[in-house]
């Protein structure tokens, strides 16, 4: 305890004597840490933050079903219902489009585009359909009560809305060429998280190229953000380590005569080592604490700069560890050199 208080009092005395140098080191290292934190926060802006991770792990967006792999619409329908039954799948935005579709849209500048038909799982009875208000059938727009024939099946228009739709069950009775069908799904949500083998079975059942959950996509995106953050951290940490090393070397040289005095009074090498290690860690820990405090105070300013997502404490600790480790690695040889020197070499002459 006595030894520790002696070390602290000596460090304080030394820093008071070299007030400009000490202030420069503290200021520079604090700004370095603050810069690292801000860079982390800017990189965090591109991170995908999921509110419900469980739902994200069960949600597979933009699923493409290779309808050509099915011999008929009936088989396709069976596969979709089996997916519902076996895996608790809910299809969101299940749509059907085909070059043979008699419904189309005329868009200015783009010409004729085939209208897509949503396969609605609720609200519509067999034989009923809703039509897009801009859709044309045989060159004419449809109104309520009109009849339209889609893939060999007659439908009665029950309402004019912002999209065309038929009941999901009707898919089984359509006589469309599956090779020309384009079945798209906005997203599918499973009841429970799927194991790898279940995912493969579902993929095979739907003849889908790939099933990537929202969670997997977010993890891939965030991995690249995280590697950017680490790169920035290493760059600025490298700069701050260089500053610490250069200024600390000067501080060591200026503290050398005092160390010589310690040695004359019989201080052991361990005392000198402890003195310098505490000296060095003080130059890292105090600015880190100051930067963390200032960063917390600047929260309102970050929001004004559209940086709303905070950085995880683990990243800040990563920065601290990187700076501390690099500083220690590069300072140790000098420290050992000073510890081995005789008092006369440490400029104690009087």
């Amino acid at each position, binding site marked *: 305890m006595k030894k520790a208080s002696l070390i602290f009092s000596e460090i304080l005395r030394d820093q008071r004597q070299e007030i400009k140098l000490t202030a420069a080191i503290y*200021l520079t290292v604090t700004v370095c840490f603050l*810069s690292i934190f801000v860079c982390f926060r800017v990189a965090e802006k591109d991170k995908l933050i999921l509110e419900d991770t469980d739902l994200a792990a069960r949600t597979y967006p933009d699923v493409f079903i290779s309808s050509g792999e099915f011999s008929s619409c009936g088989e396709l329908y069976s596969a979709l219902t089996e997916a519902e039954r076996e895996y608790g799948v809910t299809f969101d935005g299940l749509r059907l489009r085909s070059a043979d579709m008699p419904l189309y849209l005329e868009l*200015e*500048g783009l010409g004729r585009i085939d209208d897509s038909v949503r396969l609605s799982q609720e609200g519509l009875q067999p034989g009923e359909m809703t039509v897009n208000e801009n859709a044309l059938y045989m060159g004419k727009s449809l109104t309520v009560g009109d009849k339209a024939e889609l893939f060999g099946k007659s439908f009665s228009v029950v309402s004019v809305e912002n999209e065309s739709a038929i009941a999901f069950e009707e898919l089984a009775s359509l006589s469309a060429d599956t090779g020309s069908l384009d079945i798209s799904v906005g997203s599918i949500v499973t009841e429970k998280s799927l194991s790898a083998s279940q995912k493969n079975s579902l993929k095979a059942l739907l003849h889908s190229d790939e099933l990537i959950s929202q969670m997997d996509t977010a993890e891939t995106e965030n991995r690249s953000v995280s590697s950017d953050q680490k790169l920035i951290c290493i760059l600025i940490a490298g*700069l701050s380590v260089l500053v610490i090393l250069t200024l600390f070397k000067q501080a060591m040289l200026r503290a050398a005569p005092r160390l010589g005095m310690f040695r004359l009074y019989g201080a052991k090498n361990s005392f000198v080592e402890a003195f310098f290690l505490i000296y060095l860690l003080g130059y890292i820990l105090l600015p880190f604490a100051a930067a963390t405090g200032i960063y917390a105070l600047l929260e309102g300013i970050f929001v004004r700069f559209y940086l709303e997502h905070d950085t995880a404490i683990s990243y800040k600790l990563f920065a601290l560890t990187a700076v501390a480790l690099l500083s220690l690695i590069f300072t140790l040889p000098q420290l050992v050199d000073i510890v081995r020197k005789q008092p006369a070499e440490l400029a104690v002459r009087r």
Partner: protein
Amino acid sequence: MRKYIRAALSQLAYSPVLAVVLCIEFVVMMTCFSLCYGALELYRIRQQMYEQNGMSDWYYLRSGENEALISRLEADTGRSALSFEYVEGMNSDTQIVIYSEAVFKSLDILVSKGERIDLSRDYGAVPCLITSGLAGDYKVGQIYELKTDFEQRTIGSFYICGVIKDDVLFSPTYGFDYDTRHIIAYDPEARINKRMEQHFDVWNASGLTDFADKYSDYIERNAIQPFDYYYSARNELERERIMPYVLLMIVFTTLSLTGLVAYGISTGVQLRRQNALFRLVGAKRRQLVLITFLRILMIVALPALLSFVGRAYMRTTDIGETTLLSFRGQLTAIGLCFGVMFLSSLISVIGTGRESISERVREM
């Protein structure tokens, strides 16, 4: 001169590590300045174009039956619609847009090189304005026959009138786009061999006080859509994109300044002593200033050079395609680095008076 350079180099050798740190910080700071200044400059130009052209009175015509609507508007007001026609360019990166005469009369297009299109002049080819990404390939005042890269299909003969300032173009999506590979043509005689054309129309209602009331039914169902409809939302998105860059610029400027302070304190004592020695052996203050000037020039010139290389590289990346990398911003950063360093050194040199010389000599 050689002795001054040698003296400047000996001063740099006092703290080579910190000099390198400072150089790295300066490079990052200059690049950030270029990026941030460019983004802010684009924002300012967009605002300026909006105000200068009175775009709060502009309306997009979004109806599926534009021709009937335009005929009605023209009959009611005696004006023409502003027509923008997109045709297939040389490749997927290069767009050609044909502006109607009314557009050139309503929209103030600024050029950085060459001249605006003179609507009454016969250029012997289709007159056009290009953006900076094409300015390297096509010279102002020359006629070029443009072909598609893929099929070598001739698009037409184009006379390059000028280069559009800062690559800011009127957009079909509520505002202004930044595009470095864009051609704006004036083709009243339909000389361009068009394919895959798309077009949109805009109505300039400036001076028509009752326009909004008279066509309120069209405006309500978005057949006539005010330019302001999403403009503020788009501006908000732009601000959201720019502000983090601004913060990074502030952070790296602070980092450079603290690096400068550390460098100053680390080398200050030795510099003052050396200056005192120089004065003792008869050097004049202006000679010390010259040595200081050379030292700072060396420490700023290398980062400046590197930042120019960095900027040239960034122009080829995604950032360069979506954001203006401002040369002016880079020069400001270089000036700032040089100015602050020179000022602090000058104060140190001026402080080398007779009394301080004896003080430094006693120290040594």
